[in-house]
């Protein structure tokens, strides 16, 4: 009886171990096979999507650092499908006006317009784009395609870009800000990749040399540059521009103590470690300073990456790496999204709309996105490309940091007053950088002006108590 009970106990234990071993072991054993079966590491010619024959289309596209990759992938589309695509290439400054004129006219000359994420609301709200399921009722967004904080959808009821809305556009390129640093110097000094603001300051103090190597450079130029650059600091300390815009509460919070802390830190980086012309530094200047070896650390869009390893442009080939933008020790990782969204104008014939959507379907496949990335289209918008064999190649080492950053990436200014708010913040923050205003005064003035803009827009708004100036 006793031995029987003992045998039973042993059998029971063995059964439990067997169940545990099976439940843990099977997925481990199967995982690589499943992953490989679901997604090839690199595309093959046969796997490119057949979208059928379509009339020629014209795309309005911007001359950005990733344009070369886009141009090549369009050529590949033409070769693969026989469909003709004309690219109307425009510098950034002219993109919005061209897109507006096209979409507001009687018939758009473009079958597809590329729109900076912060301008999408204007197009959604104005009803200038065709909802994609009106063109193809069966169209579904592939789960591997990033939503970029739902900027592709427009919810007419809430007047907000959220997933419950209608699919209005598709992502073309997925910029977020990344932290760029001189990995060679960090390695020599035995410093680890910074994770917090304190690490950034420590590295700047240790390695920065006035006039020779700027410890940290901010993008302090007036306008979009400084507004965009400052966002990761503001969001990192838990700050915001408005209280809860998606729920309709537009109380202005840009002069909160958190925002003051973010701006104080930003100003200290600029003054202690940056060049004396921080207030005039734009994106091209950041690229210049990094590639000429004059900057140790800075935050910059992912799309600027190809400059770092280009021997014709860079003195620091292989010496720069990127990471998730560091956070305050008691804060969170955060980075602003600056992606591009393609929309199909409402005012074009149905067959042209279908042709434009066919191109986008092809472009957003794994094969299309892999090739886009390989040709220099940085960053692609499909997540499985970041699991492909590209990641192992040294020139794609940015992919790891980019993928890690995406969960922290946020859209801001997603309302009709967004452009006005950007102009206000772009000026007041810049005035603080060039020393015309104190941080408190700059934020108080910005808050008052944003409050007025919200009031004029008929928003439910309010103000926080003023900061000490």
């Amino acid at each position, binding site marked *: 009886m006793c031995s029987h009970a003992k045998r039973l106990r042993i059998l029971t234990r063995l059964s439990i171990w067997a169940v545990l071993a099976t439940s843990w072991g099977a997925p481990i054993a199967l995982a690589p096979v499943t992953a490989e079966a679901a997604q090839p590491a690199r595309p093959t010619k046969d796997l490119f999507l057949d979208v059928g024959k379509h009339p020629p289309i014209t795309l309005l596209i911007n001359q950005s650092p990733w344009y070369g990759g886009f141009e090549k992938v369009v050529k590949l589309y033409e070769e693969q499908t026989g469909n003709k695509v004309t690219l109307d290439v425009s510098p950034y400054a002219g993109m919005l006006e061209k897109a507006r004129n096209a979409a507001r006219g009687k018939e758009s000359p473009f079958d597809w317009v590329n729109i900076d994420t912060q301008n999408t609301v*204007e197009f959604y709200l*104005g*009803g*200038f784009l065709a909802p994609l399921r009106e063109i193809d009722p069966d169209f579904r967004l592939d789960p591997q395609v990033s939503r970029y904080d739902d900027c592709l959808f427009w919810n007419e009821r809430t007047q907000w870009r959220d997933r419950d809305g209608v699919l209005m556009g598709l992502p073309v390129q997925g910029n977020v800000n990344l932290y760029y640093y001189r990995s060679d110097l960090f390695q020599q000094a035995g410093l680890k990749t910074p994770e917090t603001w304190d690490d950034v300051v420590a590295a700047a103090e240790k390695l920065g040399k006035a006039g020779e190597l700027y410890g940290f450079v901010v993008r302090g130029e*007036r306008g979009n540059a400084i507004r965009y650059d400052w966002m990761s600091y503001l969001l990192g300390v838990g700050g915001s521009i408005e209280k809860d815009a998606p729920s309709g509460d537009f109380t202005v919070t840009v002069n909160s103590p958190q925002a003051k802390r973010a701006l104080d830190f930003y100003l200290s980086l600029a003054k202690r470690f940056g060049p004396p012309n921080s*207030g005039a530094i734009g994106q091209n*200047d950041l690229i210049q300073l990094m590639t000429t070896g004059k900057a140790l650390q800075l935050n910059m869009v992912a799309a600027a990456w190809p400059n770092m390893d280009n021997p014709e442009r860079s003195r620091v080939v292989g010496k720069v790496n990127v990471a998730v933008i560091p956070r305050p020790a008691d804060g969170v990782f955060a980075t602003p999204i600056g992606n591009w969204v393609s929309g199909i104008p409402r005012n074009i014939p149905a067959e042209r709309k279908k042709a434009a959507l066919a191109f986008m379907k092809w472009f957003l496949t794994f094969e299309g996105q892999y090739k886009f990335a390989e040709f220099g289209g940085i960053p692609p918008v499909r997540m499985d490309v970041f699991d492909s064999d590209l990641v192992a190649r040294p020139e794609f080492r940015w992919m790891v940091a980019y993928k890690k950053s995406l969960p922290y990436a946020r859209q801001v200014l997603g309302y009709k007053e967004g452009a006005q708010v950007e102009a206000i913040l772009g*000026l007041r923050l810049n005035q603080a950088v060039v020393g015309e205003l104190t941080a408190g005064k700059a934020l108080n003035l910005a808050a008052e002006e944003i409050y007025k803009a919200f009031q004029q827009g008929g928003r439910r708004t309010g103000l926080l108590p003023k900061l000490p100036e």
Partner: protein
Amino acid sequence: MGKAAAVEETGRPARSVADLLDATFQYWALAPALLLLLCLTLYPMLSILRMAFSTIDFAQGQFLWTFTGLQNWRTFLEDWLFRVALRNTILFVVAAVTVEMLLGLALALLACQIQMGKSIYRTIMVLPILVPAVAIGCMWRLMYNYDFGIFNRLLVALGARPLAWLADPRLAMPSVILVDIWHWVPFVFLILLAGLEALPVEVLEAANVDGASGWQRLRLVILPMVGPTLSVVLLFRTIFAFKVFDEIFLLTSGGPGTATEVVSLYIYKVFFAENRLGYGALLAVLTILTICAFVGTYRWTRLGSRAPWAS
């Protein structure tokens, strides 16, 4: 016969339709051009005036014009940035145009004395006008660059500290004025040179014979005679400088802070970046009125009366 009869009946020559057409032919000939001009100028002017009293939104793919009366005017009265832009513009116009006129005149007077290599220096002088504004912006931005620019390299070579030409609020406006001077002095120079070369030689020789000194010749003979040309150049340069946009947009975008914010740039931002069409239209109307007021005042002054059209 008929004509004679008509004269007899009325006591004065009767005018046939053909005569009337003949007499008014000049007006009929001008009519198509005038009509076209009216369509091209009056219609946009009326449209922008209407916009100035409205707000314009977009919904369902449509323009939604709402007449809002004086709302844009109220915004204007509270708009401190426009006042800053206007002040900066006036400063820019006065400084840039004054230097350009003086420098252009001095160069033209000097060039008048040189007989050799006229085509060479004229070609060299005309180059800045031919360079596209975008290229000028990029070129000067590079030269003003804090770390790599030629100006700071020179300063460092001379043992001085480099300057933040476009990032220091005290230096930014002088820096963009310098670019404007570089760009437009050749324009002033070429027109004044043409004016100087067209002066009657006999008068200048007579002044010489009468023993006038160089300064007297300049003050009492040359300047009064070249006055109409000077007036035209001054008017054009003032209007162009008031509308300055490209140089500032490319060099500073109005920054740092508000140091180089000018009227045209501000209107562009309101109109195009912020998409506030009604308010942008009001600012455009006010700018047009300001320029018209300037031209009107100018024509009534002694200086304006010297312009060729004043007679």
